């Protein structure tokens, strides 16, 4: 049974790493739904968040193959864990005067923001779970979508334990130092429930 798996990967911030990770996933014949990369608070480490459509055993295989890459520092399959997994949507809506109010009402419900406004259209920004973003797009469809850009999910596991600290190999392994994550948890705002 194929399922969407969410992999959170910390990698060395070096050229070619994205290529290696993508190749390793491709080589096992898995399709990447979304992949986002960005810096972390440690300049030498980037975080990739990958969603793939695979079965559980395949996901395990993909995870293990990725873990073998020298540039992959840690990899966690966080599917089903308590995670905050959000993506950013930018959407250009057909929004002439006649329908603009209705569009903006829905944007409000989704806690979105208008980030650009023109005569016939608006660009709206919405963040949240993939499901929430999907739902929002569905609701926008009747008004006329002109363009969509989605970031793909980025994710962090909830709670106090931070993976980044585990990377410091000076620490005795298995004894994670507590590293508080900022308490900025907007679960309550999420209109579609969480993953």
């Amino acid at each position: 049974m194929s399922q969407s798996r969410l992999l959170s990967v910390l990698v060395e911030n070096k050229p070619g790493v994205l290529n290696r990770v993508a190749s390793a996933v491709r080589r096992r014949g898995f399709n990447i739904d979304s992949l986002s990369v960005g810096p972390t608070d440690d300049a030498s480490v980037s975080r990739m968040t990958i969603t793939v459509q695979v079965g559980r055993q395949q996901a395990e295989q993909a995870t293990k193959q990725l873990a073998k890459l020298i540039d992959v520092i840690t990899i966690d399959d966080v599917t089903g864990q308590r995670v905050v997994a959000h993506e950013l949507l930018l959407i250009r809506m057909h929004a002439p005067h006649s329908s603009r109010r209705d569009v903006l009402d829905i944007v409000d419900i989704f806690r979105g923001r208008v980030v650009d406004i023109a005569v016939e259209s608006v660009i709206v920004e919405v963040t949240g779970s993939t499901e929430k973003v999907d739902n929002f797009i569905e609701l926008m469809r009747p008004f006329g979508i002109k363009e969509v850009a989605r970031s793909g999910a980025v994710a962090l596991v909830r709670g106090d334990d931070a993976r980044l600290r585990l990377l410091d190999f000076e620490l005795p392994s298995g004894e994670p130092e507590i590293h508080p994550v900022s308490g900025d948890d907007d679960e309550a705002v999420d209109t579609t429930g969480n993953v």
Partner: protein
Amino acid sequence: MIQARPDTEAEEPAAAKRPLTGAEIVFECLLAEGVSTIFGYPGGANLPLYQHLPSYPQLHHVLVRHEQGGAHAADGYARSRRGAVGVVFATSGPGALNMVTGLATAYADSVPVVAITGQVAITAVGTDAFQESDVIGSTMSVTKHSYLVTRIEDIAPTIREAFHVARSGRPGPVLIDLPKDLQQATMEFEPATEPVRLRSFPEPPRPDGMKLRRIAQLISEARRPVMLIGRGVIISGAETEVMELAHRAHIPTGWTLLGTGAFPVRDPLALQMVGFMGAGFTNRAVCDADLLILIGMRCDDRVTTRLDSFAPRVEHIVHIDIDPAEIGKNVVPHVSLVADAKTALGALLPLVEPKREHEWLTTIDQWREEHPIRFVHRNGLLQPQEVLIEMYRRCQDEAIVLADVGLNQIWAALWFDYRKPGRFLNSGGTGTMGYAFPASMGAKLSNPDKTVFCISGEGGFVMNMQEMATMVEQNIDVNVLILNNASLGMVRQFQDEFYGGIRSAVDLSFTPDFVKLGEAFGMKAMTTDRAADVGPMLDEALAHHGPVLMNFDIDRDANVYPIVPLGKGMLDFVEAS
């Protein structure tokens, strides 16, 4: 005389703090890693390396005649001696790309090789400059890791890291792409003293005590235990521990193609090679086992044949391997241990109680008699096994034996018959024809005191026969046996048995006269098609100091048996008739 010298203790690096070129830094670092032999081929993008090479007479550079030969030679050098790392140089573009198959071969079989390729100047990278190709991109899936060096300061740390990565965990080839201008640039070089540590590449964990006790318990409860071992056992040097475990609990032990040599074939507990072209009695044992212990192996399709036919009666599978990705990839174990085989077995042994399942051992002995590995004499034609038996008789349980790919490889594996663990090298994972001959050159240079036999088909031999020039130039004492069936034998057998008997593009009747060919290169060369000549010819070859090419015109219809027909299961093996 062979110029070989075993890898020495790391040499004293040059006086600290004088400006060195990038090329010199490469050599300083290679010496610091204990390298003594380099296989290589020059070209525009690595000329600075070659400019400085003569100032390092401690390094024995072997000029191969094709970069593929260089990569296989480095593989043979490393594969034939525990702890050795093979080093190979090539230039950019075509030079580097010629190594791809060699790297893939080493990668599939977990062989530590460090390849250093010249690249166009860093300022020209990405411009489609002359002889520029994307070597990192082209080799990414056939190397354990690769590096494009972009600053001279990174050369030394990169080389150190490359050796560390190549050697540790599950070993494998690592490529360093080194732009030409960095080889020429200079900097003050200070040798590093700190050991390499990679945060993404931790030491394998100590074997879990609970799991070890569980495995010991499974062994004590098993009525029909079987152990299968792969190349991981050889890599970790766990042959003794495997023997001890087998004997303490009387566990019949078989092996994969790449595990051949890890267990003494003449041992009463020895099974044989398992799987697709494995021995019938071994396949039967695996299919009847209630406990299967798999050590240092991948369980690929040549081992399992049709997956659902593999070990149908098994109640527990224990899988020990250093690569977590191999656990559960093909065969899902009940108990698994991610660990170095030697470490794991060392920890397991004290927990295992001596035992012996008489009935099981008797059954296996019965199967062994019912399904012997045998061959059939036909019309007085020379049988390949007759050649191999004579050769193995002269190995004295010591010689290093290499086999190429095809029927010759499987015959050589099935007739390997040492009384103690020995070295049998072949390209198992990729099945690269043309591997054995250049690899045998590396094996001999790595083990100058050992006799080396290289078995090959006439098809595979010509794929890298240019290395005859290297062999003769360096006077590398390898005894080559061509089992000449005037065809791409294994493909021919497949066509005969599984593809409607239509022989297509397998006829090699037009092969060169190998005696003339060998002599043209300056090799001692001999040929025969008579069984009576085999022994004397081998003796003459052994008495000769230098490379010898022996051609044996064998029965052109000799096949490999047993064989499991394609798509069939483990017990559907067909035997010699």
